[in-house]
């Protein structure tokens, strides 16, 4: 009995003593939407270091589920329970700005933002901005679509360079396809990352989600329909894909490639991570190239060389009462050191956002082809931000349904995309607040 009393007394005294210390600190809550494990660890470590070097600020870090990040944020917004900082992807920006969830960083501290600007690749700065304001401090970008191909297999079949047009793609795939070995591996499950690759191809073909004024959904235009037709032909007419296109996602497909189940695969910029996970040797003969495009884009919009999303970056919420302190934290993640650290310390093959990182030995090693283009100044020229608008999540689901319907032979491409357009038009209109 006595022991219990002593224990309670000590604990209360301890709590009382620590509370003034806690009171002096500004507490910031940070929700981070789950990235890969090594990146989460990096963020956590840097946050802990930050808390140590900034004794008057305490950042409380919590890891959230990726799939529900948007829902969680919106529900918290509805109840006034938003955190101060959020780390999430750039495609979330239009929705969150429309709901007034995030704050424009240049209005919190324009000097700091001006200091940041010259470091970043200008096209990427655009990805993290909206309507002229910077909302996100990007960490890295993922680009798609890319073609990952087996150099050796192509050479042995007589091809010295990877296919650049759709006709070449069909020819190469046909030559290399045999039972149990796909000419090209495609991923078309319902997860949004598969859709991102597809959106990349659509945008490269001059297709778009929305019309210029943002009012109408134009996903059923020729830019997208022709891409779907290509996929359907590859899968059903020429039969040069793996049989399970609708059950293989982007990760499975890339893994299968490195397990020698296919000669080519349509993937994203960080495909090499799969090589490491598959146990394939470092000198596995693969190459990374822009995905093949139609000789002339059939959509009426300008073609994009690829689309990129800043899949992780720092946001400050408009509800935060400590925006200045939050900017200090954001500043850490805008620093050259951390931005280069994504490439040098965290090896998950993301494309860097800060100019100086492109000259690091790590980048040159991970992306030799990209480095060559960077040197020539051609890397980001025609790149566009990953498509996003208010309602993109549900629209991407409609796109997945359309894609699967066509691939399974249930609908012809035009029909499938017409239905996608109708459903998505409803979504876009109903979300107009």
């Amino acid at each position, binding site marked *: 009995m006595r022991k219990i009393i002593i224990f309670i007394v000590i604990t209360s005294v301890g709590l009382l003593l620590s509370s003034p210390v806690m009171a002096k600190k500004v507490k910031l809550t940070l929700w981070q939407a*789950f990235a*890969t*494990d*090594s990146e*989460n*660890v990096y963020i*956590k*470590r840097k946050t802990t270091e930050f808390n140590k070097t900034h004794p008057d600020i305490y950042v409380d870090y*919590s*890891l*959230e*589920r*990726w799939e*529900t990040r948007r829902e*969680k944020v919106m529900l918290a917004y509805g109840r006034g329970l938003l955190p101060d900082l959020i780390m999430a992807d750039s495609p979330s920006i239009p929705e969150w700005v429309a709901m007034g969830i995030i704050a424009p960083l240049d209005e919190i501290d324009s000097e700091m933002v001006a200091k940041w600007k010259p470091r970043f690749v200008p096209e990427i700065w655009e990805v993290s901005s909206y309507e002229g304001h910077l909302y996100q401090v990007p960490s890295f970008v993922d680009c798609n679509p890319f073609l990952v191909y087996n150099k050796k297999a192509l050479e042995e079949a007589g091809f010295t360079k990877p296919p650049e047009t759709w006709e070449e793609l069909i020819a190469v795939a046909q030559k290399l396809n045999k039972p149990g070995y796909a000419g090209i591996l495609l991923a078309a499950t319902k997860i949004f990352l598969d859709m991102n690759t597809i959106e990349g191809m659509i945008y490269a073909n001059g297709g778009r989600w929305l019309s210029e004024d943002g009012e109408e959904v134009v996903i059923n235009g020729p830019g997208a329909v022709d891409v779907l037709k290509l996929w359907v032909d590859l899968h059903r007419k020429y039969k040069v894909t793996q049989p399970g296109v609708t059950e293989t*996602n982007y*990760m*499975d497909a890339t*893994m*299968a490639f490195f*397990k020698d*189940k296919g000669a080519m695969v349509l993937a994203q910029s960080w495909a090499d991570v*799969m090589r490491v*996970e*598959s*146990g*394939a040797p470092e000198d596995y003969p693969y190459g990374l190239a822009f995905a093949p495009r139609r000789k002339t884009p059939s959509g009426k919009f300008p073609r994009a060389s690829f689309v990129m999303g800043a899949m992780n970056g720092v946001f400050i919420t408009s509800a935060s009462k400590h925006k200045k302190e939050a900017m200090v934290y954001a500043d850490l993640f805008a620093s050259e050191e951390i931005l280069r650290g994504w490439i040098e310390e*965290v090896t*998950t093959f993301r494309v860097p956002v800060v100019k100086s990182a492109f000259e690091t030995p790590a980048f040159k090693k991970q992306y030799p082809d990209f480095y060559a283009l960077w040197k020539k100044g051609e890397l980001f020229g025609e790149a566009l931000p990953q498509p996003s608008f208010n309602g993109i999540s549900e629209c991407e689901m409609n796109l997945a349904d359309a894609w699967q319907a066509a691939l399974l032979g249930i609908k012809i491409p035009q029909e499938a995309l017409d239905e996608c357009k109708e459903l998505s038009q409803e979504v876009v209109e109903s979300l107009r607040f």
Partner: protein
Amino acid sequence: MTEITRKTISVALVAIVAVIIFLVIWFPMLWAVSTSFKPKGEVYKVPPVWIPQHPTLEMYRRVWTGRSAGGVTEEGSPWGRYVTNSLIVTGTTVIFAMILATFAGYSLARFKFPGRTLIFILFIASQMFPGPMVMVPIYGIMVKLGLYNTLAGLIVIYTASVLPFTTLISVGSLRNIPHELEESAMIDGCSRMGVFFRIVLPLSKVAVITTGIFAFLMSFGEYAFAVVLITGSKRFTVPLGLARYITAFDIYWNEISATILTIAIPLIFIFFAAQKHFVKGIIAGSLKG
């Protein structure tokens, strides 16, 4: 056909059937065991590797010490946290269920009070209800009660889900306790409540164990309500963690297998140790109503 031939054929048939049954039932687990010891390169080898050529404990190390997919150390094992959360939720649910189901079961078994039939029917009916059909209102109720995204919310709904079935099972078991025992105790001066705590409870071992095991199995592996009610990985239970790996990182199967094994083995031990009681309890409960 000679007697010997007939016997041989029947023995052979039995053997084949037994083997088929065994394989179909146990193949996934055996495959998981094999995979959990495989290094990266062997997981997807073609033709498939049955016995790992370079067996490694790496995956188990990762699961237990906190490394995870991606191969970089994370301070504080995520699985440790998930298992702790699961144990808290499951443990509390089991305790609540054991207490409440036994109480209610005794009440229904022993006393004939007005409203008894109605309550019986209610319990029988509600053992069918809790589940994804009422996901939406449960979500709404939990938000209103402030239990959204809390372990307490899970405990509450899991207990509610288990109570009907376990109460009915307890009724069956508790019916068998002869009234004379209680009556003689009361003659000796014991109060009604005293009889319950001192005579009935110790004799209701089977009911309590069955309830406990059922509650444990149901809440440990529950996923549907967990995925609706929990969103921060701080509060993930084991099924949530597993599902995340299976649907998002579905290439790290050697690691997933190691996790599955780590979870399954204690489950198997607990269950097989108490299997006899459990089956007895279910039979008693359901056969005798």
